[in-house]
């Protein structure tokens, strides 16, 4: 869909190119100024977070630079929240959720997309998609109870839940993508004697790269930042994820703001660092997710 239009966009008649070039190179400075000023609404809170983390408690709450730079706030917070443990936990959960989501998602999407003429697979499609409309609060209480009695009130249960709750939306994006992959590729392989699994791993899975990147990014951001699911699923304190650790921390040590801010900053830092390096990918990935 979108790919087609961008293609035609690129292949313009040579005549109009000249006019277009001159116009498209004129920078709109007014709009640039407006956008720059508006971007302060994002940069100022971040600046505030950083400088507050480096102040003394008495100094906190002002927007100026710190009088003395209190780097030890980070060390204090590091120990108080048990940061390495929480970060490792969050990282493991995020990676596992992404891997499991990608596996199940590509399997289901491929099988369903290629067999939509069959009643069973058609039913399966709607079986998964319909779940998009079940709001989480409805299943929140039974899940909390059920996972406790199944001994899934831990990281494994959490990972499974990310897979289940994301599958509907991801499937929706991925089946559309798979249908755009020509079936003739598979038919050729089949004639050469390849089975369905082989075709999947050798042809389909590699071709799904772009859409899998999108799904991986969205799942990773969700699993890393999520607060509600860990809150209701993880009963053991030692299993805490980063958002959960901040929650417990801020109800206990809320009075020392610089230390709290150092802790918040450390909670944001890993994803911000990844984002700085991968932002082009992230942005184009999310955009592709939207165009389904």
């Amino acid at each position, binding site marked *: 869909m979108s790919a087609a239009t961008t293609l035609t966009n690129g292949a313009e008649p040579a005549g109009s190119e000249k006019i277009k070039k001159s116009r498209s190179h004129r920078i709109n*400075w007014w709009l640039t100024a407006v956008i*720059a000023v508006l*971007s302060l609404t994002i940069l100022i809170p971040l600046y505030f977070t950083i400088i507050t983390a480096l102040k003394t408690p008495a100094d906190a709450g002002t927007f100026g630079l710190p009088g003395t730079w209190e780097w030890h706030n980070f060390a204090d917070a590091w120990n108080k929240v048990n940061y390495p443990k929480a970060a490792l936990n969050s990282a493991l959960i995020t990676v596992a959720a992404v891997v499991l989501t990608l596996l199940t998602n590509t399997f289901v999407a491929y099988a369903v997309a290629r067999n939509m003429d069959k009643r069973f697979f058609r039913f399966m499609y709607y079986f998964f998609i319909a779940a998009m409309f079940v709001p989480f609060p*409805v*299943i929140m209480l039974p899940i909390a109870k059920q996972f406790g009695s199944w001994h899934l009130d831990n990281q494994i249960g959490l990972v499974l839940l990310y897979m289940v709750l994301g*599958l509907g939306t991801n499937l*929706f994006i991925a089946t559309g993508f798979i249908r755009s992959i020509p079936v003739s590729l598979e038919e050729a392989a089949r004639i050469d004697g390849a089975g369905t699994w082989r075709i999947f791993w050798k042809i389909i899975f590699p071709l799904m790269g772009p859409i899998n990147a999108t799904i991986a990014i969205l799942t990773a951001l969700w699993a890393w930042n999520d607060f509600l699911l860990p809150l209701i699923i993880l009963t053991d304190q030692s299993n805490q994820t980063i958002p959960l650790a901040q929650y417990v921390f801020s109800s206990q040590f809320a009075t020392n703001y610089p230390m709290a*801010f150092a802790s918040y900053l450390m909670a944001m830092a890993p994803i911000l660092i990844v984002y700085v390096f991968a932002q082009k990918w992230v942005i184009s990935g999310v955009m592709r997710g939207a165009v389904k």
Partner: protein
Amino acid sequence: MSHVQTAQGAAVKRPKKRSAFSNRKVDRAYYWMVVPAAVIFGLFLYVPFIQGVAYSFTNSQGFGDYKWIGFKNYVALFSDDRVGHAYLFTFLIAIAITILINVIAMFLAVALNSNLWFKNGFRAIYFIPYTLGVLVIGYVFKYIFMTPLPALGRALNISWLSESLLTSEHYAWVPIVFLAVWQGIAYSTLIYLAGLQTIDGEIYEAASIDGVNGWQRFSKITFPLIGPFFTINLVLTMKNALGTFDQVVALTNGGPDSKTETVTYLIYTGGLTGGEYAYQTANAVLFFIVLAIIAFVQLKFFGNKEKI
């Protein structure tokens, strides 16, 4: 299905019934790809869902014995002021959040799609909020709303700002909406940007020859052409806004005086920590019905050609 076919003569009828679908034989591998996921899916999503509905007709507290009490929970919900207020509050902030996000995101997308200096850099900056966890950034905003901002209000003699908005019964919703919008804009902006990529540049060329002004350009060309993306965004932002939870936990904890409790927050606190397990499950089922109606109306109203 195979056992049905072998049963007395049904085999003759079966293929006929399926004739609308193809009779092609399906490789067993495809079933292996779908069925395990479907089983986990059913177990973790549909089973709790059905259980939730069942619990809503009991007086369970989440543990111990319970009795069937029919529709009593549902009847009670309708005369519960706290629940009524939570619904009202949730709808009001959801509408505010949806409108604000979509208006601002639409503007940003159009701006970020035109000829700016440092365009990709600005795109990157505007997407930062989406990468941050709501709870953590919420704590930062809580502090900003509690200390520096009232100080600023006092310095500038702005009376409504000199007290913390978070402790005000009338204005505590403002920070919640602010945080949700601050975070939600990024994703919607990207969806609109994706929509703008699908518009052929030549349409604008033709329009500029016809002497179309900036506003007409947007309202007559851009907006109609990104209509499907508007629908997607509206449904998604509304769905997210109706589930507002993290923002409330981070900023107000439902206070002051239960004034900022959203439905999700009420279901969580009442159901898991307040001993109202069955009652809040009934609330959740009611919420589901309400949300389903809203989603249906939205899709119907904004053109059902586009799916979510």
